[in-house]
């Protein structure tokens, strides 16, 4: 309740800001396009603005737009904008389709979704159009499995046709952590159960990839049921999966994503270019479903795991 009120007030404040920014259009330097006014997006935007303000960027030079309003931004305003930030896939899609004079950075965009945006807009990944992925880097995921489930050696992965090309990188990441990858392609919903069963037979842990063809709100229930029956823990990419019954989730919060985006905005404002490679999230969180852990006779502590993983990453 309180949170909803906060969101509402923030939304209201942002709207007022939007109106003010329009009035002082010539001063806009950072344009933030948010797909939705939902809590994660607002958290990300707040973190971004807070970070920028703390680093001396005046609030008045930061403007938040709706994706639908992008096309109607006046030419004069567009010339003053130094950097665009897209929060969410839809915003990224809109910016990708717009002719922008300034570089654009996406955030809160999953890897698969960004690939789709690139395909749809014809953009290349470049300093002018880059993204901070929402998904965690494969190496981090594998490292977490290694840390959390040291007894597990075989990692099962289900990939849809669109994501099948990640098979190789997954295998590399797995072997880098001393794990064997068992990847299976799922062509359609009918084949899901058969694929799942074949993967589970040869795996100690199932690593979920953010591929909506395989993992979506309708399939997750049955997938979870199947994995629990097969006594194979599921490592997911979102805390929601942990709430639904996955053992672990590795993810970045919107605040973390906003802060990371702010870092790169400051870089651009400081006259530097964005990197040409996609940006992996540098901060992350880990969730644990204690109930599932108990069923699987595991003892896991999310904070400890996070710290351990962070520490491991900091080591060369």
């Amino acid at each position, binding site marked *: 309740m309180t949170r909803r009120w906060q969101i509402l007030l923030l939304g209201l404040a942002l709207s007022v800001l939007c109106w003010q920014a329009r009035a002082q259009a010539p001063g806009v330097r950072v344009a933030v396009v948010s*797909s*939705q006014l*939902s*809590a*994660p997006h607002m958290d990300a935007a707040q973190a971004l603005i807070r970070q920028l303000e703390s680093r001396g960027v005046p609030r008045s030079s930061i403007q938040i737009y709706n994706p639908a309003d992008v096309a109607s931004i006046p030419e004069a305003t567009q010339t003053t904008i130094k950097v665009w930030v897209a929060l*969410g*896939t*839809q915003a990224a899609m809109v910016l990708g389709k717009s002719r922008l004079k300034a570089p654009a950075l996406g955030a*809160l*965009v*999953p890897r*698969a*979704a960004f690939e*789709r945006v690139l395909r749809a807009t014809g953009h290349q990944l470049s300093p002018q159009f880059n993204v901070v992925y*929402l998904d965690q880097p494969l190496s981090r995921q594998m490292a977490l499995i290694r840390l959390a489930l040291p007894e597990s050696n075989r990692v099962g992965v289900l990939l849809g046709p669109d994501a099948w090309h990640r098979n190789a990188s997954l295998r590399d990441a797995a072997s880098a952590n001393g794990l064997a990858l068992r990847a299976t392609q799922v062509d359609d*919903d*009918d084949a*899901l*159960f058969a694929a799942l069963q074949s993967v589970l037979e040869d795996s100690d842990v199932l690593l979920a990839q*953010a591929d*909506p*063809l395989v993992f*979506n*709100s*309708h*399939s*997750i*229930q*049955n997938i979870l*049921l*199947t994995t629990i029956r097969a006594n194979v823990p599921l490592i997911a*990419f*979102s*805390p*929601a*999966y942990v709430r*639904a019954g996955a053992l672990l989730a590795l993810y970045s919060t*919107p605040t973390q994503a906003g802060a990371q985006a702010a870092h790169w905005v400051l870089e651009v404002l400081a006259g530097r270019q964005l990197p040409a490679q996609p940006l992996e999230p540098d901060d992350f969180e880990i969730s644990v479903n204690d109930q599932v852990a108990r069923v699987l006779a595991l003892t896991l502590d999310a904070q400890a795991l996070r710290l351990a993983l962070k520490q491991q990453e900091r080591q060369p």
Partner: protein
Amino acid sequence: MKNSDIRRRMLLAALLPVALLCLLLSGVFLFSRFEDINDNYQLRNRSVARQLALACEFGLFAANQEQLQAIALGALREPDVRWVGIRDRAGRLLASAGEANGAGLPGVFGPAEQIVGNLPDMFTQAVYASGLKLDDLYEESNGFEHRSAAPLGQVEVMFSHQPVSDKKREILLLGGLISILGLLFGVVLAARLSAGVIRPMMRVSHLIERIGHGDFAAAARVQANTSADDPLHALQENLVRMANRLANVQQELEQQVATTTSALREKKEEAELATQAKSRFLAAASHDLRQPIHALGMFVARLSQLQHDAATRQLIDKLDASVRAIQNLLDGLLDISRLEARAVQIKLQDFPLQELFERVADDLAPLAQDKELRLRVRPCTLWVRSDSALLYRILLNLVGNALRYTEQGGVLLACRPSADPTQLNIEVWDSGLGIAPEHQEAVFKEFFQVGNPARQRTKGMGLGLSIVQRSCQLLNHRLQLSSRLGAGTRFRLTLPRAAPRAAWAEAMLPQPNQDGVAQGAAVLVIDDDDLVRQALVELLQSWDYQVAHADGLQQAQQVIQNGFAPALVISDYRLNGNAQGIDVIAQLRQQLASPVPACLISGDADPALLLAAQVAHLTLLHKPVRPAKLRSLLSRLLTVQGESDARS
């Protein structure tokens, strides 16, 4: 019948709304109950199908036929479930349980939940993967929401309708039973209530009927039977009051009628006494008048036969006319009294009119000549059925009357065929002074004369039309009078026609005088009145009869013993010492040992006398006897006697 009719109507009036309401309510409640049962059935079945679908979700996802079969078998344990089928999204039957007849159904994917075709108890429920709200960020980006609409498969459940039908039948039976019981209760109630109304009504109705028939005492009886809580108590009380009042009024009326009747009877008796007194007086007066006038007539007749000088002859003629007038008056009175007493015997016969007309014309010709009037008789060949003597008197009176009241012109007697072929009209026309409309009824009354306040003797006595009318009534002939003042009068007599016959005995008609037929015959005259006897004897002698006379039976017997053999006996009816002419004649006939012709002469107008004479086969002459009539009778009697003697 009336009772049952009222009862039926009342029952109908009371029952019809109850029955309708009963039916309506039963219908509404049964219908809504059926709806409820149906709804419950559908709801329960649907929920069974839904639960089954939920249970099947993972089994279908995993295509786990063993699990699905177990679920299907488990669903069979639900009441009314006959068959369960679980199909995957391709329509393949993965599991089924129950009666086999549902297994052949094709897999149909339609709306999430459906009642298949015409089978109301077949439910299908599509099975979807249950959704789970996940992370907004990934959901926003996946863009594959539409794919979730595809179902995992479907569940088909067939339910038995039998329990529902049984329950409906049960409710229907119960409802029908309650309705019938309600109706029966209504019938009994209505019958009892209506009886409470009908009985007093019928009682009142019977009471009115009895009062209508005059039984006023019924009211009192009914009143005694009714109680104060009777619904029609007030009505009955009023009826009783009315009946009592009617009874009183009737009593009063009866008393009044009785009083009036007795008063009228007294008046009538008084009037009758007065009439009898008048009749007695008239009879006595006429009897006493007849004797001297009878004698006077005969003396005048005798006198006229003698030789006289011219002056005396004229005087005698006037005397004769005066005597004839008196005689006519007395004849008229006699006729009236006889007609009034209905003592006239009618002899209906068929006869031709012509001869009757001629006789009337002959008899009245002198009167017409005296007044210098033309009396015409139109020749007539028709026959009629009537009494010739009475008809003669009628015509004589009508024509005589016409002549008397006509000063110039003439009188016509004619017969004409009537519009009715069975009838005939005899008409008497005159050119006299006519009768005013206001007098046309009065002319038929005794002694009424138009335009003769001075009562001139030549105009008659005013008895003619009265005699005519009474005679016509007796004969049943219709008499019509049409007249205009100053333009003459026409009397029309309508009587039945008869077929002409060849043989006609002329003797039936009153014969004209046949003088000298039996001259010199011996006639015995018996009369206790010396004057009358003397006049008659002298008259008979003047007609050349041998006459002996006696004042009674004894003298007569002596005359016969003395050797007088009468050919004819003429006797007065009433003789000295209460002796009667009839007895005298009978005894004389005994003495003579032969039925000597005889005739009676009487001064009484007593109808009984006429009957007695007829019984004794005697001709009765009334005083004053006209000499001509007497002469004609004598000659006829003597002729008949002569003929019978010749035959014997």
